[in-house]
Structure formats: C-alpha cells, structure tokens
C-alpha cells in the first residue's frame, strides 16, 4: 500500500474522447511526465470555467502499458460543482495542467476477501482495483449499481473480465441493490472499497456500523461530489460580517463565500478535513450534509456545516442559512 500522494504537476494532452453514453465521456490524456497509476489513484486537474479556475479530481480508469496515457471518466451532471460541464467541452489537442497520479485510496492485498462497490460514475475509481484483485487471484465480488442501463458504460467489459464475481444492479429495472443484504454477506475479514453517490455510501456506512464490522475495513473515496438532492440556490447570512451571499446551484457555498471576497480557511474541498467548518445560528430549510467529517449525531444536531460540500435544501421555500464566520 505504497501511497504516492505527492502533488507533481505536469501537462496532459487530450488525445482521445469517447462518448460512452450521452452524459459520460472517457477522456484519454497523454502525460508529459508519465508515471504509473496504482489502482485507486486519481489525478487533479485545473479547468477554466469563464474567469474561474476550477480544480477537480478524477480517478484513473485505465492506463496504457507504457504508463504514458491515462483514461478518466467524466459524468456531466447538474448536480456537481461545475467541473463536469467544462470537462465535456474539452477537445482533442487541448492541453491541461494535471497532476501525476495521486494515491489516496490504496488497495491492500492481504485481506481474506473483498467487495468492490461502485455507484454510477464512481465505477471509475474501482475498475483498476478489480483488475488488480483478479491478477492477485483474490477472493472478491464486484458490485456495480447504476440508475439505468444506458449509464452502465463499463458493465460489458466488467462482466467479461470478472465473470461470476461481477454483479450489475439497475435501479429503473426493478433490480435494486439491497445494501443490507450486501453488508450482511461481509465478515470481519472483508474489506469493502466503495465509490459512488453519498446516499449509497451513507447506507453502507450505517449497515457496516450496525453489523459491528471493523470500520477501518470500509474504504471509500468521495471527491465531495453528488448529494441526495438536486442542488438549488440558497442564501447565506454571515451574521458577524453583516453580509448576505447567494450560493448558485452550480457552485459550492465555499466558492460563493470566496467570490464574495471572504477569505475562508479550507483545505481538502471534499468534505473530509473539517477545516472549512462554519457555526450555524439558524436556518430555513434543511442542511444537506455532504461531508464525511461530522458524525451522524453531529449532522443531526446541525450546529456546524462543512461549507466546501454541504448545502441547504428545501422542498417549497427558498432556503437560507445564518452562520458565524468567526
């Protein structure tokens, strides 16, 4: 599990774009300083969206045998922080600033057995892990959950590669995954690696706890994308600065506060570190906590919010939140 999490920037030349599905592109980049991507690794890249520079993370789906070309998968979604739209506008010949592959989601080889659980575009983080487990002749199951069949862009390849170890669940074909059933098949020697929507991962975490399984055997990566609800605009009152900021549907609360000129302390920007925490005074609507920093109890109390990923939602009214900036 040799993690290489040093950030080394290089150029990535777009050499191939595949429209795998109407909303999904496979983009192949030629690295200027090629490095091998270990299973579970990702690259960060810088996108230009209007005047803004966006930094986004994408898992490495596959790599050429000489390590020079890496392929990533990008889902175009409203429910994101704006990066996927810019990514879908890329053309062959474009050059991006990208990092060499970074490893924050390492696969360990000595577990008794494994479950790989991919939800939607989260599959991109797990394809290489599946290959590695197959090569290692490990005891594993590969579970792939999608909303509808046309989004299951990797399903045919995975079925061919993994045979009986592979299972596809398609929500709109009344073939839904039972998370409870899945987790109850895990034992103390099982490691579960997952990447997918926060809702799916929350369900798994809850079941994992319920079954009293070792929490360190539950491995996941979030990138802070995807919530339970469609994002909507909301208003933020910064009580101790007398400021009001509107957060648009395509930006994060952190982005909006920074655009308004506030210097916010933040680091991971994916809901893991807790540095961007703000204290909540009151709110209209519901806080949708999209982070993995707070416990369920803390999220339920709602006294604090990780503004890099979490948002306000409301079914009827226009949502608002009042916070103390400190």
């Amino acid at each position, binding site marked *: *599990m*040799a*993690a290489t*999490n040093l950030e080394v920037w290089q150029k990535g030349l777009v050499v191939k774009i595949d429209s795998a599905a109407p909303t999904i592109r496979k983009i192949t980049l030629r690295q200027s300083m090629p490095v*091998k991507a*270990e299973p579970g690794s990702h690259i960060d890249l810088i996108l230009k969206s209007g005047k803004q520079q966006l930094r986004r993370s994408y898992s490495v789906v596959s790599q050429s045998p000489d*390590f020079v070309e890496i392929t990533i998968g990008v889902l175009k979604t409203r429910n994101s922080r704006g990066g996927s739209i810019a990514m879908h506008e890329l053309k062959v010949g474009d050059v991006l600033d990208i990092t060499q592959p970074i490893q*924050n*989601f*390492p696969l*360990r*080889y*000595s577990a008794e057995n494994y479950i790989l659980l991919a939800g939607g575009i989260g599959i991109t983080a797990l394809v290489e892990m599946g290959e*590695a487990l197959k*090569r*290692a002749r490990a005891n594993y199951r590969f579970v792939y959950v999608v909303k509808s069949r046309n989004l299951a862009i990797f399903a045919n390849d995975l079925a061919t590669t993994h045979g009986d170890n592979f299972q596809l669940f398609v929500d709109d074909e009344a073939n839904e995954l039972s998370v409870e059933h899945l987790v109850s098949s895990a034992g103390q020697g099982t490691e579960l690696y997952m990447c997918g929507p926060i809702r799916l991962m929350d369900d798994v975490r809850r079941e994992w706890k319920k079954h009293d399984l070792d*929490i*360190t055997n539950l*491995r*996941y*990566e*979030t990138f802070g994308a995807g919530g339970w609800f469609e994002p909507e605009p909301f208003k933020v009152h910064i009580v101790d600065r007398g400021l009001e900021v509107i957060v648009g549907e395509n930006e994060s609360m952190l982005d909006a506060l920074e655009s308004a000129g506030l210097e916010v302390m933040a680091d*991971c920007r994916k809901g*893991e*570190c*807790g540095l961007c925490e703000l204290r909540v005074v009151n709110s209209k609507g519901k806080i949708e906590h999209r982070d*993995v*920093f*707070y*416990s369920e*109890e*803390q999220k339920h109390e709602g006294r604090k919010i990780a503004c890099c990923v979490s948002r306000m939602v409301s079914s009827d009214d226009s949502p608002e939140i009042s916070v103390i900036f400190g």
Partner: protein
Amino acid sequence: MAATNLGSTTTTKITNFPLNAWYVAAWDYELTRNPIARTICEKPLALYRTESGKPVALADACWHRLAPLSMGKTIGADGIQCPYHGIVYNSAGRCVSMPAQETLNPSATVPSFPAVQRYRYIWVWLGDPALADPDLIPNMSQMDDPNWTGDGKTIHADCNYQLIVDNLMDLTHEEFVHGSSIGQAELSEAEFVTTHTENSVTVTRWMKNINPPPFWKKNLRDVYPDYEGKVDRWQIIHFYAPSTICIDVGVAKAGTGAPDGDRSQGVNGYVMNTITPESERTSHYFWSFQRNYRLESQAITTQLREGVTRVFGEDEVMLRAQQEAIDANPNYEFYNLNIDAGGMWVRRILEKALKAEGRSTATFSTPGNK
C-alpha cells in the same frame, strides 16, 4: 574498423536498486513491541511487531504532520500511536483514532509494506505490493536449519550496495585484503567456473592440495585436532537477485574426494550475506557465518563470528575508500577483468530487473556516471 559500442551499462559505478524485491530490513531479534526506525531503499520505515508477533513495516511519517511513528509506541493488538498528536494507525497503516473529532478522515493512511519473517531476518517489499510473493525470498535455509548453526552481525557500509556484491562475487581480493586470515596466492591461480540463470549466478572455485590459510587451519582442527596436512579448499558463490550471496566454503583433507562430493573429511561453512540498499551510497550489510559441524560449541560460534567480523572490517575499509575514490574521480570509468565474470552477470540481472520496473540502471545524480 571501430567496434560497435552497444551502450552496455553493466559498468555503472553506482547502481540503482530494484524495488520489486524482498530486502532484509532487520534481524528477527531486533523487532519487538518497541518500534525502531530504519531506512530501506531510501524509504524511512517504522518497524515493530504486533501483539501476536507479526512483523509490521510502516512508512515512518505520520499522515498528519509527518512526525516519525518510530518515536511513538505500539498500542492495542497491532497499532502504533504517533508521538506528536496521538493519531493511531493499525498494522495496515489505516488510521483508527484521530484526536478531537468523531469521525476518521478516509484518506488518513500511512503506507504499509509487506513484511515477512524468514531465515532469522525480517524481509520487506517496497515495490508493487501485488507482486510481493514470499516464495521469491532467496533460499537462506542454512540460517535456521537445525543441522547448521552460527551467528553474524550487521555492517553499516558507506558504499553503494553493488560494490559489496562485486566484492563477494570475486574472492581473489582475499589474497590482498585478508592476507592474515583467509587470503592466499592460490585464489588467483585456481581456475573458476561461472554459471547463471535468469535470477542467479554461481561462481565455483576449487583449490586442490594447498596449505590451508590460518582461518581454515583452525576450523579444520576444531574437528580434526591432529591433522597437519594439505587440504582441498572450495568457494562456491551463490548469488540470488537482487543482492543475496550465500557462499559455500570449506576445506577437506587433500585427496579425500571433496571435489567429487564427499566432504566427510572436511569442515563446511556457509557465509550468508544479504545486502540492503539504504541510500545510493550506504548499505545495510547483514551477514552470518553458518557451519554444519561442532553444533554444540558456542565457543566456536563466537570465535567464527568475531573472526569474520575482523575479516569483514577489512572489506568495510576498502569499500568506503573505493566509494570515496569513485566520487572523487567522476570522469573515470570502470574497466573489467576476466575475474569479474560473476559480478558482471549480476549486473546484467539487475539491469533487466530495473528495466522491467521502468527504471534505469543509474538514475542517481552521480557526476560522470553512465
């Protein structure tokens, strides 16, 4: 017509090290519940044992602020606690406890490297963990076979590991470096045979009907106290990639059939050497002298260990001086002699191993290195 230069790099002066290999990180006795720090292949490691005795090798830097975990203490069944802010990792390098928060950051891990105890050593694998098959550990069975006994030490050598491998692959240097113990002129006079496979090299040398040098005279007398005559002496050097060298050595009463396989009238030792790169210019050199006679005698074990310590001390001085001379003369090349055949096959094997990893033989910033 000039000969074609094929650009062989087998005379690289400071050789890079393959990472997809098992290297000895420590003696078995060195690993306890108290973590130790050791740098292997330029990676600082924290080494300790779990409560059940399993060896653990973690990167020696906490995920949070890189404080050395080796300064911390073991905790629970298999964990280690950072001495600075108390973050706890398990033996897989996964954070199990974080200060002042109710959850664990999912990216909080430190690299954990495969570690295996075998032949009285702790072996670690720093390359691709998917390839870390313990069956690839070179055979050093004389280390803990009940028919053998012996002991050794660790030399912290101030030179590139390849220079030590060179030293052990060509023992003609014994005449000049170890003249008072094991050296003798017959070493250079006797013919030797070199054979090789994909990942091993063997150099065999027999010196028949010679006077034993002091070291071997003493050893033979430990079994045959009255023997005064000549001996047949052998040195069979077994190299196993990337840097283990087991040397079958011994003498038998001359003419009693040892060269044909009957060693019953002699004494047999195995010099077990395994060299672990620490940095490009320093190495951990683990050795032991094993023997298959007079197993009951602790005195002989200690005499041999101390005797070989003195002999290897002479190598240590030469190797340091050689490394310094290499660095002081960046514009001069290595040249090869016929006696270097064994060492040259080793270089070919290492070159291929490095190439397979996509790494060059000499990536180091050595001035004048090819």
